[in-house]
């Protein structure tokens, strides 16, 4: 298994996500409900293969594989998918699998198609500190939650659009209800903020230990994302930021958060013993 390069596993995983997306698209074009079982099988297969690929990459970099933009995109897709595999069967939100397959296929293929994002591997990126590795993994997992939140937000907007414009057929006929989408979005927002708060708290311990090694840009960007999501959650709970304004906020925040990962990654100061390896 280890003789196959990690990127090959990730290419195959991306193909499975794409297959799920194609399955859903074909079903929707034919105005049929896609097979939930097949969608789950495709996504699970993609997830397992991606786990193997990221596992191999983790071995290579001696830590959590979130050391460059390629890995950050891959890990975000992996987090969103793992969450979908847990909550998908519980909430049975129709089309969530389809949208998840679309998101994961996009993130994984884009990351694979931009070689520059994977040109540098940092080994021992976290300086052997399990806390900072835990912090990074938690933070990235919260991004996965926010990715899923962005998906349910898009689904909410589509459902409201269909109801207001009287376009009820095709893809719109399979969307979950407005109230269900609002509820799941609120739960995801709460879960994402909780995870990110925990990540920030763990990161603070590391920062307090050795603040010279944590660049100010990274702290500022991470805190800005955390504050933005926390304020969004508070405003939602107080009934101030609701419905379409809330969903647009969640979508825009995720896009901003996703691209802020690049800033966080580039601002990273490598620990003294962390060698970098250029990829051919």
């Amino acid at each position, binding site marked *: 298994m280890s003789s196959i390069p990690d990127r090959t596993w990730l290419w195959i995983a991306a193909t499975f996500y794409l297959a799920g997306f194609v399955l859903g698209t074909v079903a929707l074009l034919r*105005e*049929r409900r896609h097979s939930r079982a097949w969608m789950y099988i495709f996504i699970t297969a993609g997830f397992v293969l991606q786990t193997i690929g990221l596992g191999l990459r983790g071995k290579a970099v001696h830590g959590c594989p979130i050391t460059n933009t390629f890995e950050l995109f891959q890990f975000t897709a992996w987090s969103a998918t793992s969450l979908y595999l847990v909550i998908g069967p519980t909430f049975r939100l129709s089309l969530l699998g389809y949208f998840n397959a679309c998101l994961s296929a996009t993130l994984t293929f884009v990351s694979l198609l931009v070689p520059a994002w994977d040109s540098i591997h940092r080994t021992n990126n976290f300086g052997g500190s399990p806390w900072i590795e835990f912090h990074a993994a938690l933070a990235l997992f919260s991004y996965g939650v926010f990715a899923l939140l962005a998906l349910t937000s898009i689904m909410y907007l589509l*459902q409201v659009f*269909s*109801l*207001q414009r*009287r376009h*009820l*057929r095709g893809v719109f*006929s399979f*969307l*979950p*209800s*407005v*109230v*269900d989408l*609002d509820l799941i979005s609120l739960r995801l927002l709460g879960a994402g903020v909780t995870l990110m708060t925990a990540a920030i708290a763990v990161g603070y311990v590391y920062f307090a230990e050795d603040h010279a090694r944590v660049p100010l840009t990274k702290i500022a960007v991470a805190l800005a994302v955390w504050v933005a999501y926390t304020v969004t959650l508070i405003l939602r709970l107080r*009934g101030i930021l*609701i*419905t*379409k304004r809330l969903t647009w906020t969640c979508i825009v925040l995720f896009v901003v958060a996703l691209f802020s990962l690049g800033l966080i990654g580039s601002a990273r100061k490598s620990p003294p013993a962390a060698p970098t390896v250029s990829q051919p």
Partner: protein
Amino acid sequence: MSEQSSPTLFTLGASHHTTPIELREKLALTADKMNAFCEQLKQLRGLREYAVLNTCNRIEFYGLADATETVEQLQHEFCAFQGFSDAEFRSIRLHALNRDAIQHLLEVSSGLNSQMLGETEILGQVKDAYAAAQTRHSVGPVLNRVFQKTFQYAKHVRTHTAITEGQISVANVAVDLATKIFGELAHARILLLGAGEIGDKTAKAFQSRGARSLTVASRRLERAQELATTLGAAALPFEQWAARLSDFDIVVCSTAAPQTMVKLADTRAAMKKRPARPLFFIDLALPRDVDQTAAKEENVFLYNLDDLAKIAEENLAARTTEVKRAREILTEKANLLWAQISAKTRLESTPAPSAPACDQQAR
């Protein structure tokens, strides 16, 4: 055994396609009459197996007879029993034999033959007819297989075509829209503003889909209380509805008021108290009860009678386009089932009697 005297699978009856309601009323069998006639059929020689499908839109006999003459005799006895002219029955009757009889049963059970294309209630009625025949011991190996396969194939058609998709009545379209907004309706609070017939129908459609909390408000409190009692709902004094609007998720308006009942200010006041929870107006009144500008408010959804009727028409058109595909599937299944049954029981394909022009073709 000659061709005419071969055991024959048959369908005989009359349905809404050719029989107006006045005649269907005369042909329908009440429970008592059904029992009496079935007793009488025990004496009919050559009738091996039978089941009777008796609904508001059709009375149909499905059976296995020793010969086609037995089917004619059954028709004669039925007409005599109901005091109906044999000749008149012949002019409106549905008569299909062997493979065509199976095809007809499949199409009936799948809703292809129904007045409301694709409706699903008919399958339950066919199941009831079969259960009653089992209780009477009037079905045997042939009809058992035919009915059991019919239920399987009807389900197959529903799953593999869009023949039952989308509601085609205004009340059910409204309920479908409500599920798109609220999901499960068990916890949705519904206000009926006006206690007319269309409001009543819509309320019943909501109840059939799990709605439990209904409140009726009408200018005439006694009418509101009467409808509330019928529906197992609560009654609300009419002058209180505006103040209580925020308590409800779905408002079904069907008053006869000549002016707008629900003004924009009422909607805004209600939404101020429940900004995160959607409010769905179903305006079935003419002239309309709800100020149309309410639809522009955040989290407010408003559908009027025209909107609902248009959706119902679109759904019906979509179902109609599926008929051909559904019929193709059923034809294949009917051929298969007929081949199995005829091989097992040595039933022979028997041509339909002459003068088919007056017989309703199995659709």
